[in-house]
């Protein structure tokens, strides 16, 4: 084979990520770069396509019969699915990095406008209340969205997705805070990198949120901040809840 031209530094990094040779820190960097740099993300996808056929040589093996039931039990409840979709809908329109085909976006918009179908069989639901949304951007440097959150008044719950790469801040926890009026920041719970979480709120807290509030995330030692006045660790992201 004749000598091929070297890959550019960016493409080599993309190829290495697709191949799987990067260590945890570098993988985190690559994931973060994919989220903000579409050209890099395309390079990674292209390399996954190039290398993917290697798995084609692997023989198929039927999983055990009960595995589907195990998976089904793990899936978020039906109404949860719809709420998460509402969040996804919002997130897609706010964060350009997560592209969705226009058709599916339209389909989701229709879905958002409908009450959950499984429930309508037994009762009629009032139209869903107005979602409040927040994009929690980095508090220093470029304003990159690190977390997205939505408050669903129907469920009195906040749905938060951490966009940090999995494995970010090992041995630390991400603590979510509610900041409203002159009150001390109120801890709402912990987030996991790369995952979505539904946090139900007590009625009085929900009232505060509905009136408009700011959400923030701090990086804390396991167990969270022990300071009753608020975060102990650095605040990495913050953003105000508002209507779309």
């Amino acid at each position: 084979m004749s000598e091929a031209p070297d890959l550019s530094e960016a493409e080599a990094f993309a190829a290495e990520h697709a191949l799987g040779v990067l260590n945890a820190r570098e993988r985190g960097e690559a994931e973060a770069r994919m989220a903000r740099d579409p050209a890099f993300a395309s390079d990674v996808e292209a390399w996954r396509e190039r290398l993917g056929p290697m798995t084609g040589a692997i023989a198929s093996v039927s999983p055990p019969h009960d595995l589907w039931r195990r998976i089904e039990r793990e899936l978020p409840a039906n109404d949860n699915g719809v709420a998460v979709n509402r969040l996804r809908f919002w997130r897609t329109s706010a964060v350009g990095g997560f592209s969705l085909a226009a058709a599916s976006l339209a389909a989701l918009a229709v879905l958002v406008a409908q009450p959950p179908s499984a429930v309508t069989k037994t009762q009629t639901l009032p139209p869903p209340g107005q979602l409040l949304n927040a994009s929690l951007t980095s508090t220093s440097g470029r304003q990159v969205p690190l977390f997205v959150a939505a408050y669903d008044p129907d469920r009195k719950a906040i749905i938060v997705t951490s966009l940090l790469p999995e494995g970010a801040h090992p041995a630390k926890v991400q603590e979510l805070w509610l900041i409203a009026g002159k009150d001390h920041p109120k801890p709402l719970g912990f987030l996991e990198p790369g995952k979505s979480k539904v946090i139900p709120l007590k009625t009085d807290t929900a009232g505060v949120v509905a009136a408009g509030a700011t959400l923030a995330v701090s990086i804390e030692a396991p167990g969270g901040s022990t300071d009753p006045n608020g975060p102990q660790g650095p605040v990495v992201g913050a953003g105000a809840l508002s209507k779309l």
Partner: protein
Amino acid sequence: MAAAATTSDILGPLMSRIAAGEREALRQLYDATSAKLFGVCLRILSDREESEDVLQDVYVTIWRRADRFDATRASVMTWLSTIARNRSIDRLRARGPLAYAEQVDELELPDGADSAETLLSAADDRNRLHGCLSELDERTEKVIRTAFFEGVTYEALAKRMDAPLGTVKSWIRRGLAKLKGCLQS
């Protein structure tokens, strides 16, 4: 390539239905792809119980992230296999440094031409990649395959092969550049 076109014809619409929260669509995707993905997990982990756990996690992840699938950038099977491979590699890495103590073994690649695969894999792509990989020198081919199937980092590869990190890195980068050239030609 009729088989490949059929695969994306079937799986593509399933992905949008899954993104919209339709469980039945996930069930159909599971029926069509779970044997293939279970094979991928088993190949990487060589442990049935762990592979079952990971496979469960893979489909829950697919359910949660189906909205991120972008048909213009990736094929469904590659996207699914990437999740299965990454999750398996995460599990493998979580076993700790011992997992890297093993020698780079001879990787046997069975020709898995079973029935599900005629539907699911694009045999032409596989053969072309196989051909291009075998044009690399033997050592480079082996490190690329090992990295792919075991998620072995540069650091661990260097240790296993008793070679400097920079050297291993340049073998792989050169190998990947050649691979790209070969696949394009």
